[in-house]
């Protein structure tokens, strides 16, 4: 493909203290694609995702969203670091779903979803509420609109979190182990919502341990270990005929 990738990660490195978490990680995601990142715990998958929307600031390398470096602005030949509000504007293009949901506990479900559009985009409450109800219907939780997050199950909370992200109409959705904190029987509902999203053409980067989901839904799978991309390619190849010994041994243990 010759077009500019929606997301490009270029030689991103990150260390916490003396621990090198990411080493020159590079990858491209084109519009409409689903990229799944798999790998053992501590391989740097989540940190990679957090570097994409700059919740973590990379030590080296750049992330480009729609061709623009994330967190920086071109001024002539120089890259100027963005102000907090400029970065916020860029982050609006990327939704993110966390392992532990992080819903706002002091707001009702529907207000969790409208908060972004109202506070950030200045949408009027009525319209925001209508859109929120549409999204909640989509994730199957319209009847929980008036409840507080605490009264919801983990799976329901995670679906609200997805609706909250979608309300900002992002170009890209980041999922950080969205089902890892859920009871096994609740995983399916969340994955179904994600499958629907992928079918609707949403561009997604999904860090996951759900290999079946990765095999079914991903256009591209990246296997990471020790902060490096060991192997990347279509799911048929990664799961069917992995080239690297490390990939093979990981898959043999999780499949």
């Amino acid at each position: 493909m010759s077009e500019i990738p929606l997301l490009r990660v270029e030689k991103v490195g990150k260390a916490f203290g003396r621990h090198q978490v990411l080493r020159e990680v590079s990858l491209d995601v084109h519009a409409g694609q689903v990229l799944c990142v798999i790998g053992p715990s501590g391989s740097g998958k989540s940190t990679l995702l957090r570097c994409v929307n700059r919740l973590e600031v990379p030590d080296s390398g750049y992330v480009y969203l729609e061709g623009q470096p994330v967190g920086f602005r071109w001024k002539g030949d120089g890259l100027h670091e963005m102000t907090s509000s400029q970065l916020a504007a860029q982050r609006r293009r990327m939704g993110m779903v966390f392992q532990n949901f992080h819903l706002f506990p002091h707001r009702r479900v529907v207000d969790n979803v409208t908060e972004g559009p109202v506070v950030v985009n200045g949408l009027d409450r009525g319209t925001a509420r209508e859109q929120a109800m549409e999204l909640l219907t989509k994730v199957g939780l319209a009847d929980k609109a008036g409840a507080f997050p605490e009264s919801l199950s983990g799976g329901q909370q995670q679906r609200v979190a997805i609706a909250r992200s979608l309300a900002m109409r992002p170009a890209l959705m980041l999922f950080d182990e969205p089902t890892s904190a859920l009871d096994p029987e609740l995983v399916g509902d969340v994955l179904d919502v994600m499958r629907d999203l992928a079918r609707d053409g949403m561009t997604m980067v999904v860090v996951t341990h759900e290999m079946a989901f990765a095999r079914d839904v991903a256009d591209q799978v990246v296997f990471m270990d020790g902060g490096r991309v060991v192997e990347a390619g279509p799911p048929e190849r990664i799961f069917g005929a992995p080239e690297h010994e490390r990939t093979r041994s990981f898959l043999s243990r999780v499949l």
Partner: protein
Amino acid sequence: MTFAGSPAQGSEEGGAFRGAERGAFRSAEGARRVPLRHPWWWAGGAVLVLLIALFARLLLTNENLRWSVVLEYLFDREILGGLVTTLELTVLAMVLGLAIGVVLAVMRLSANPLFRSVSWLWLWFFRGVPPLVQMVFWFNLATLIPVIELGVPFGPTLASWDTNTVVSSFSAAILGLALTESAYAAEMIRAGIQAVPKGQTEAALVVGMSRFQVLRRVVLPQALRIVVPPIGNDLISMLKFTSLVSVLATPDLLYSAQMIYSRNYRTIPLLLVATIWYLVLTTLLTLAQQHVERRMKVTRATAGRAGDVRRLRFLPSFGKA
């Protein structure tokens, strides 16, 4: 390997139950049950009742209390005026103190070391100097700075006021109380902010909020809920601390009572009048605090849980969409 002292095991080994060795099994069903007695509970209670009776006799029979005088002055105009002043002082000092406290707490958590140190210095100073000393100091500010000027620093003056007219005894009292409160409130609010999980900030940033929006819409509302009980406590102690202003001759509840008894020498009855009003106010504040706490608990935690009747009040016509 044997499991000694494991009574549930090994009944098939023959007589693992010690009771079974002594005789036949005795069922407890239908037997007379004797509850545990608490003799000291009764003895302690008797002493307390005696003490209460003695105190009640003192209140009722001691002539120096002069309940008729108490009743006469309880709704006296001067006293009621003092009551209003006390309330004004409490509310103003508290609001001002909390507002400064929020700013100090945010400064304390700032990445900028200068902000952090200024906040720390403020806390150190205003927590260290007694409010009474501060009040007297503010009241005498004119001796230090006779004229307050507004203008360009080290440049021309745009406006100026005589310090004595700006800092009355009332505003000196407010300053002393509010600045002390700001230091305490700052520490409480900082603890509250730090108790809000980091994931909340991240979730808000990811939705595209700016740092300020995150603070105002997500972090502070949750931090303040955490901080309600200690703030309520502070409000009640603030009410009592306002009595310090009698030193500056501000006619609050206590000073009004003092002015009356300095004329008629009915010291004890008028102090009783003040006491009664302070108790009434603290009782009201305690009830208000309980109400707020309960309400917040409902909106935050229990609402939406099936079977909770109270939820109906806070969930108007939603959820059937």
